[in-house]
């Protein structure tokens, strides 16, 4: 048996290659070399100004003197000093580096509110991927709190060296407490994100420009400050008006709740109790939005000049402006997702867990990176799934659902056998080998879907290579185990989607490799489907890509049929009568196979519909390929199919088969339309049945609503497709030359009902 150990790390390597380990030109947060001692006894500085200039002047035009290891390519990233666009330290004539803004100036309550609301917008901009230097670190109060770095809670103030004992101005106390709560939660957010997999340039900038975000100041002390500020507001509510005191109070409450939410999320325990602070934030968010008008903006309290003091190789950049409406929407979504993501902790079964991750991440817009990293933490932290399950438990659960209900292979008591010639000893040993081989690949599927959508697709490219080897290793283990289980081959005859009768052949169940193949097929389908979602394919390629998707879905359907046949056979041939618990396990597995089969059939049929439709549109020249002077069909096929090229099962169709399947030259246009119209009925029925499944039968426990919405949207896409077909059919009644009267629009993925089903809009020309 060959255990391709080094292969197993392929995808993990992909993750290691993420930007967390890859310092970037601009955002690099690695510590700079220690600053030099400007005056030191041991170092002597000699003025070489004239000598240097004279020597340089003798160089020929264009000639360079440079260090051999230094490339001009590197120099492209260099900042040009004294260029105002590049050099953040370059001052305009008469301009001072110091802030002209006086943080000690008296603030009106409305101004504090205005500053806080601006900070909310900037905080959200940071969550959306802009660096701190263009967002929160442009605020003079925050800068004054952070620089010089405060060592104690009392030093954490924008007014330093206050007379001890003298009470703070109430408005200063409110603003300071807000800023402290904000900075501390930003620190936690940043740490959480850094700890998980994310993409620095695409998702989030963790650079803090060597500002410490109050990491050494205790969370409880900050909470005390927030509480104190709230009681101050309570005391002065008559002076500043009840309304204003409430508005400021809600904002402080938001900060308290955010810190609490972060604190609780470390527990990974009961989602109901964890969701309390999130619900609180959601509740105060509405009144915050409604009281926004009470604030008066203080634009002078925000300045890009502060960037000059940040350790950064970035040229000065403008402050990011996010409208309060956008801020409102994004925060609202953040709080809703914050509540929703906790539901993942309610483990029901491995397939519901997978569906949770899939549907949660498929939301448009996708949850913010903080929520996505929170999801990763819940899933994987310390290699304990959801805070209480072993990886083995989840994998065994999955194997039991998909291929091995009530199997002796998954009996935990096998582990206790110490007699080497007992078959159970070998089973325990081989199964453990298999789990070790497959665990990483299995978990990586969940991890992959926690990334941004483009990265999901890219990561899946590597994953399918990985699953290819998992499947081969699983095959070897299957062969060893069938001996231990004394499995007898059965005569298996595939029937689904098979055009000609195949003679039944003796076959073994091969459960582990079937399991691996099923995942590989799903991954391959997801790659193609994400290709539609991400607009990877041109309209004229859709016929081919839907054909290929149909091909994959069909293969999956055949595999599920095979798995089901062996499961049924095993159920019927048990040595002992089945206990109710065993019956339930079989039922659960068969329910899963049923839903998977329905999904495969629906995908296959609907793909066939769309492939036929696009072929017709190409024939009628209603979709015209763009001129591609340097490309050929073969080259394009190669590039499109590159991720699938090295996969041996299912083998990539030859370009001839692909062209034949896509263009279907033997079919008349009329029969293609008829074919599409027939297939749509099947697809419609499958999605209809799927939509009626209970959350248990759909394996979508705790995510059923989102899952159902996705299924319903597929169903709506089908309705749209049937309308398009009938319009197409009407418009082509005149024969092959028909279609002149038709107008075709291929909508963007987000303009249809479902991103994975690009249904052309076909209408009569006016």
């Amino acid at each position, binding site marked *: 048996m060959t255990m391709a150990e080094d292969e197993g790390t392929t995808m993990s390597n992909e993750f290691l290659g993420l930007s967390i380990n890859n310092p970037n030109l601009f955002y690099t947060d690695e510590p700079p070399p220690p600053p*030099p001692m400007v005056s030191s006894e041991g170092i002597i500085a000699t*003025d070489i100004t004239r000598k240097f*200039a004279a020597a340089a002047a*003798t160089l020929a035009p264009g000639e360079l003197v440079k260090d051999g290891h*230094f490339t001009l390519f590197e120099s492209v990233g260099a*900042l040009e000093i004294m260029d105002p666009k590049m050099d953040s330290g370059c001052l305009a004539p008469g301009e001072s580096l110091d802030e002209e803004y006086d943080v000690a100036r008296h603030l009106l309550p409305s101004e504090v509110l205005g500053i806080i609301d601006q900070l909310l917008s900037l905080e959200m901009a940071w969550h959306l991927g802009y660096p701190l230097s263009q967002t929160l670190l442009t605020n003079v109060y925050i800068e004054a709190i952070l620089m010089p770095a405060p060592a104690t809670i009392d030093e954490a103030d924008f007014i330093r060296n206050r007379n001890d004992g003298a009470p703070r101005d109430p408005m200063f106390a409110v603003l300071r407490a807000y800023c402290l709560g904000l900075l501390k939660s930003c620190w936690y957010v940043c740490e959480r994100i850094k700890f998980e997999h994310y993409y620095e340039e695409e998702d989030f900038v963790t650079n803090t420009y060597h500002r410490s975000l109050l990491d050494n100041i205790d969370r409880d002390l900050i909470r005390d400050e927030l509480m104190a500020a709230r009681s101050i507001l309570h005391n002065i509510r008559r002076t500043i008006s009840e309304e204003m005191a409430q508005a400021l109070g809600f904002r402080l409450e938001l900060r308290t709740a955010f810190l609490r939410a972060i604190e609780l999320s470390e527990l990974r325990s009961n989602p109901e109790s964890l969701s309390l602070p999130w619900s609180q934030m959601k509740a105060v968010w509405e009144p915050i939005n409604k009281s926004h008008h009470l604030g008066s903006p203080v634009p002078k309290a925000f300045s890009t000049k502060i960037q000059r003091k940040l350790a950064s*190789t970035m040229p000065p950049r403008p402050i990011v402006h996010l409208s309060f409406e956008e801020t409102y929407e994004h925060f609202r979504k953040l709080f809703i997702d914050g509540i929703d993501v906790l539901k993942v902790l309610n483990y029901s079964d491995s397939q519901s867990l997978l569906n949770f991750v899939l549907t949660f991440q498929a939301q448009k817009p996708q949850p913010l990176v903080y929520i996505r990293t929170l999801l990763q933490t819940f899933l994987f932290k310390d290699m304990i799934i959801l805070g209480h399950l072993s990886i083995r438990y989840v994998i065994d659960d999955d194997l039991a659902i998909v291929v091995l209900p009530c199997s002796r292979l998954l009996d935990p008591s096998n582990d206790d056998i110490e007699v080497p010639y007992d078959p159970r000893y070998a089973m325990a040993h081989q199964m453990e080998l298999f789990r070790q081989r497959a665990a990483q690949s299995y978990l990586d599927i969940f991890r992959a879907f926690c990334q941004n959508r483009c990265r999901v697709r890219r990561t899946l490219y590597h994953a399918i290579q990985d699953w290819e080897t998992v499947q081969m290793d699983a095959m070897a283990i299957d062969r060893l185990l069938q001996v231990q289980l004394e499995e007898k081959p059965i005569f298996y005859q595939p029937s689904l989607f098979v055009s000609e009768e195949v003679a039944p052949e003796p076959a073994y169940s091969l459960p582990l490799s079937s399991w691996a193949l099923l995942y590989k097929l799903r991954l391959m389908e997801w790659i193609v489907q994400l290709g539609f979602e991400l607009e990877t394919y041109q309209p004229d390629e859709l016929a081919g890509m839907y054909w290929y998707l149909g091909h994959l879905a069909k293969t999956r359907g055949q595999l599920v049929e095979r798995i089901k046949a062996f499961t049924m056979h095993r159920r019927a041939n048990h040595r002992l009568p089945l206990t109710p618990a065993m019956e339930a396990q079989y039922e659960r597995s068969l329910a899963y196979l049923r839903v998977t089969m329905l999904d495969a059939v629906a995908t296959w049929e609907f793909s066939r519909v769309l492939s036929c439709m696009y072929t017709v549109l190409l024939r009628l020249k209603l979709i015209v390929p763009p001129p591609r002077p340097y490309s050929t069909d073969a080259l394009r096929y190669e590039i499109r199919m590159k991720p699938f090229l090295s996969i041996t099962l299912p083998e990539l169709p030859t370009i001839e088969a692909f062209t034949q399947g896509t263009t279907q030259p033997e079919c008349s246009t009329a029969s293609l339309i008829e074919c599409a119209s027939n297939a749509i009925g099947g697809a419609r029925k499958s999605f209809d049945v799927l939509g009626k499944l209970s959350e248990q039968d759909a394996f979508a426990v705790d995510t059923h609503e989102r899952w159902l919405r996705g299924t319903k949207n597929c169903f709506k896409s089908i309705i749209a497709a049937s309308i398009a077909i009938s319009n197409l059919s009407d418009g082509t009644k005149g024969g092959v030359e028909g279609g002149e009267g038709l107008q075709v629009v291929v909508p963007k993925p987000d303009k249809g009902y479902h991103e994975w089903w690009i249904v052309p809009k076909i209408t009569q020309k006016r």
Partner: protein
Amino acid sequence: MEDTRTSPEGVQTPAQTEAADYLRSLLNKNLRVTTTDSRMFWGAFKCTDPESNLVLQHTYEYRHPSMQKQAEGSAAAAAASGATATPGSSVAQTFKMDMTSRYLGLVVVPGEHIVKIELEEFASQMKRGPQYRSPTEL
């Protein structure tokens, strides 16, 4: 010296060769480059051209405190020493302030903005061996 430029045939004069050798000897040494706005850049010398445009690596920017900050510092120093000041002492004039610095990384300092270039060397190394002398000093 007749012609310090590259001759039409591309042959370098001895003076040119020596000048280039001198510049090369400075590579990777730490320079302090002062610009017209009186900032100083400290970094490892990587590259130059006929216009004395300089590329420095791992650069720090140093800036003298602003007039306002100097005044504040001076006042603070005077206040601090006020309690113990002996008559006639002029503490306010001799207080020390750190230059503010920040890390910039790789920079290009255009020759036209350079007012001073200083070479940093360890005192111990300067004593050892003969010091290089540029053509103009020969």
